[in-house]
């Protein structure tokens, strides 16, 4: 019984982590950007969905759609207002770009976090579930929406895979992540690729945020931990590797869940941190990372 509970709970958490991490690693792989406002985007999407429902009296599906829209809009804003000016700035040398983008996205994330707290208070918000009620799965009582969450996460990851491997734009994105100069030589407009990637990233972060809001709830305080969590998982899995991120997401999700069930909820985060330290020491580029 306990084993089943751990398996199911861990699976749902892992799926959520995987979705968030996939977005994070995608934007790094293609744009070379470690977006430290990642958590802020997720929380903003969830907060927007909550507000649409509570203040705007919209149904759960409409609220979720609002949340997704906000996620995409904010991601594009991050690109146009924060990332692109730094990438194009003549005053910043190439090797310094990374630190500036890190600092700038960090500040941008703080701005979004403060805005959310000012508008809606720092209290946790929950998004209304798409389907209510519970059901029995192998004898374990589980909310129906939790099953839906796991399914949706995997569906989105699956659609992403199809997009990258089967569509023209998607393949261009994949190519750009491997060799951006080659892509330009092929006549593909690189700037359009970037916009497309950021929009897709916004969608991924938005879905992850809204689903997280339904499942567990978020608050403005979640912003930092969510970014740190995505960052850790992506580095653990190897920067730029989507498979690595998914593997790492499940590793962390299950480690946390097992610790919470078997040891104590108070020590939930520690084994994952220790795993991170070990992997950093033994395999510094992550499980499936490429240099």
């Amino acid at each position: 019984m306990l084993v089943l509970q751990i398996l199911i709970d861990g699976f749902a958490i892992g799926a959520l982590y995987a979705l968030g991490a996939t977005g994070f690693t995608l934007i790094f792989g293609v744009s070379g950007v470690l977006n430290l406002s990642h958590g802020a985007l997720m929380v903003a999407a969830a907060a927007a969905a909550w507000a649409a429902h509570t203040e705007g009296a919209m149904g759960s599906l409409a609220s979720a759609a609002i949340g997704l829209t906000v996620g995409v809009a904010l991601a594009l804003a991050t690109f146009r207002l924060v990332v692109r000016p730094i990438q194009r700035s003549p005053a910043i040398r190439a090797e310094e770009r990374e630190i500036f983008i890190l600092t700038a996205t960090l500040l941008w994330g703080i701005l979004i976090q403060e805005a959310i707290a000012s508008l809606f208070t720092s209290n946790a918000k929950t998004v209304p579930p798409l389907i209510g009620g519970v059901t029995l799965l192998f004898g374990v009582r589980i909310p129906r929406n939790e099953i839906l969450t796991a399914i949706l996460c995997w569906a989105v990851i699956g659609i992403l895979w199809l997009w990258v491997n089967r569509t023209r734009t998607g393949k261009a994105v994949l190519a750009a992540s491997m060799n951006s100069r080659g892509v330009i030589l092929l006549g593909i407009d690189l700037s359009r690729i970037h916009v497309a990637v950021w929009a897709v990233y916004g969608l991924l972060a938005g879905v992850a945020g809204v689903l997280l809001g339904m499942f567990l709830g978020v608050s403005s305080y979640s912003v930092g931990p969510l970014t740190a969590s995505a960052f850790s998982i992506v580095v653990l899995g190897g920067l730029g590797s989507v498979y690595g991120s998914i593997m790492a997401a499940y590793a962390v999700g299950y480690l946390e869940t097992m610790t919470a069930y078997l040891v104590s909820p108070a020590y939930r985060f520690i084994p994952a941190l220790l795993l991170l330290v070990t992997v950093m020491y033994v395999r510094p580029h992550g499980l499936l990372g490429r240099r």
Partner: protein
Amino acid sequence: MAKTAPLRPFWPVLAILALAAFLPLGVSGYVLGLLTLAYYFGVFAMAWDLLFGFANEVNFGTTFLIGVGAYSAGILDNRYGLPIWACVAAGTAIAVVGGLILALPALRVSGPYFGLTTLVAVLLLQNFVIIFSEVTGGEIGLVVPDVITTDAAGNYWIALALLATSGVILTTLSRSAVGLILQASGQDRIQAAALGFNVTRHKLVAFSVSALFSGLAGSFMVFYMGTASIGTLIDITIGVQIIIAAVLGGRRTIIGAAFGAIFLIGLTEILRPTGEVATFLVSAVALLVVILAPNGLTGMVARKARP
């Protein structure tokens, strides 16, 4: 390789220091208290700049070192009642040891992996403090029975002295071989190593010095505020503020970091009447500076100084 800024700022900085030393004669205790905190932050930011600003790596190493030093000093006073100077010395020494322990995994990696290692170190330290709360005070923090002095001017001069001393030492170090090699490795690690520089040894020196000052300032801060807590010393937001202060002030200048810290804390305080949106406004200003004036405050001043 970029040239480090010439020694021209030396005289203006000396003048500013002299002015600062005389401030307590005319300024209120409240402003002194604010500047005291800003000076300690300045030390943190300068320590960060030496190690990470030069080496082009964003990370939270200083937060870890501050926490280790400050909590060690605080616990020693709280549990064993050692005299303050002994606690501070011990805190600093333990911070240096902590720095070396952090350096072990941290130096094998670079870039975001380095940043992550330091982030994890901070998170582990936080968890450690919470779990061993009987010793560390846990969530509420540690109340230290002794304070150096309750006199605002006294505290101010101590902080100023620490800022000036660490500024001189860190600046000297940054212009020495250590600083140049850190910069070189920050720009092209492989090339730096290929040129025969023992990158690791120099980074270790930088780590130790950075740890020394972080731990020293952290310990002093504990005996200034009378408390040590996660929220004031080991929070990620502290690390974020340090990075922002250093980048805002102008990286690779060391003194720029100090100015950035003072600017940040001063601005936050001036905006206090705006209430809850103060953090938002300060972050917005910082973001604009980072995007529009990447060389920070010192860069803006330097540009004006050049004809």
